[in-house]
């Protein structure tokens, strides 16, 4: 690919890619919840949340906290959660990450993973608690595998998002 955009169309395409790849990839992650797959045990982490979290940790500057609100609403509608669940949990995560970022001078990969682990635990336990409020009385030990899979899925998600980010910013 040429490093210099040859025409105004090409400029527009690159601009679009630059702006919307994070959003589209997160929406794709949310839509993965529609996979025709019937699970008996909660094992798969929330892929939309994982994509959102990875983008947020990699590129803190692209989204403000209110972005999580709209994407959370979309996730609630797509995956059949009670309305407001992802809106609340995702936005709370973003605000907490803003606080952490204002206190940390810098983050490296391992700290990103640690923060992501905390966010995944918060998100999964929050979803469990909301399910409990909705009358689904299950043991908290049931969601432990889901938390572990989520934490170990973060590096994979980080690789994928990093590849996307390189492609997004490529010249």
């Amino acid at each position, binding site marked *: 690919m040429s490093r210099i955009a040859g025409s105004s169309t090409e400029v527009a395409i690159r601009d679009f890619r630059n702006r919307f790849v994070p959003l589209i990839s997160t929406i794709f992650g949310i839509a993965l919840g529609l996979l*025709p797959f*019937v699970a*008996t045990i*909660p094992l798969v982490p929330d892929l939309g949340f994982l994509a959102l979290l990875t983008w947020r940790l990699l590129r803190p500057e692209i989204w403000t906290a209110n972005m999580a609100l709209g994407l959370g609403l979309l996730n609630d509608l797509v995956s059949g959660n*009670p309305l407001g669940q992802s809106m609340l949990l995702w936005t709370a995560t973003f605000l907490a990450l803003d606080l952490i970022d204002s206190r940390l001078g810098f983050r490296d990969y391992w700290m990103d993973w640690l923060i992501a682990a905390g966010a995944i635990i918060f998100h999964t336990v929050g979803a469990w608690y909301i*399910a409990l409020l909705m009358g689904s009385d299950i*043991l908290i030990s049931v969601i432990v595998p889901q938390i572990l899979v989520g934490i170990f899925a973060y590096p994979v998600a980080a690789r994928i998002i990093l590849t996307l980010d390189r492609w997004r910013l490529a010249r």
Partner: protein
Amino acid sequence: MAPPKKRRPGYSRKAQYGLFLGYVVAVAGMVVAVLLLALSVIDPRGYQAVKGAALDVTAPVSEGGRSIVRFFTDIGDTVSDYFRAGSQNEQLRAELATAQQELVRAQAAEAENRRLLALLGLAREAQDEVTVARIVGSSFESPRRLATLSAGSSAGVALGQPVRAPEGLIGRVIETGRWASRVLLVTDGSSSVPVRLVRDGTPALAVGRGDGTIELRTLEVGQNPFRGGDVLVTSGIGGIFPPNIPVARVVRLEGDTAIARPIANPARADFAIVQRAWQPAANAALDAAQPQPIAPPVTGPPPPAAQGTTTPAQRQNDPRYQPALQSGNAAPPVATTPPQGQQPQGQQPGTPR
């Protein structure tokens, strides 16, 4: 590390206001989300229209992918069948021998059953199914156990209707869209199904545990009526679920309860049958009955019935019939409420309770 003194993103007023507005929107949105959640807890059917519409939009995506997933599953099955052909052949032959004996027994039982039903003048009730649909997806990312069904209110699916596979019960409908609906599986933590043990009819409650198993709770204390391998079917108590649908098979015992696995696996079931919510036959008779004329208010004891002219049945149909007053005049009327101002009954000496 302490937060920096200056949090402003540069000197642009626009950027500063934009950031501030972002936080305002985020916090306000969280408050709205909490309110939405609170409303969902109070009234789980509150957002029926919104969620149903979302379901209609998303279900076709799942439905399209379903055939792809099935294709790959089938390839896996075919390959493993090929490798297991020898041992499977032997095993199937043994199973066939047993099955043939069972078949003869079952045919005899069915013939007898038909004869008895004819004797009683009962016709076998037609299965009142609403529709047959595919299970196209599930909420595999959340702690809830919900499945998506490819039929909605346009096919007659309504809230609360039981859903079953040919093998056994799957769950019941909790959300409907126009062309898709969502099913609460029996393994979900908020699902409880009244069941009975096939072996001896012991009633129990099958409550989902969220991890693919079901907990069976009985009213009996001290002894566990279940054994490994026991099969439970719906009892029909409380309506909704028609009786005699297989629900679960006991896997192991835990104290007073038993852990069971559902017999129908929604991941494997090709089709799900949506049935009408079951009403006990008694209710139907009640609905069909003519409304009784309201009896005039009782002003005094009923006149003593003339002996020999009325049968007990006729007397019991009389709305003014009171057996306690009919049986002799020796017993004085019992004061049922203690006079005001007395001590509570439990402390009165010599009061039989």
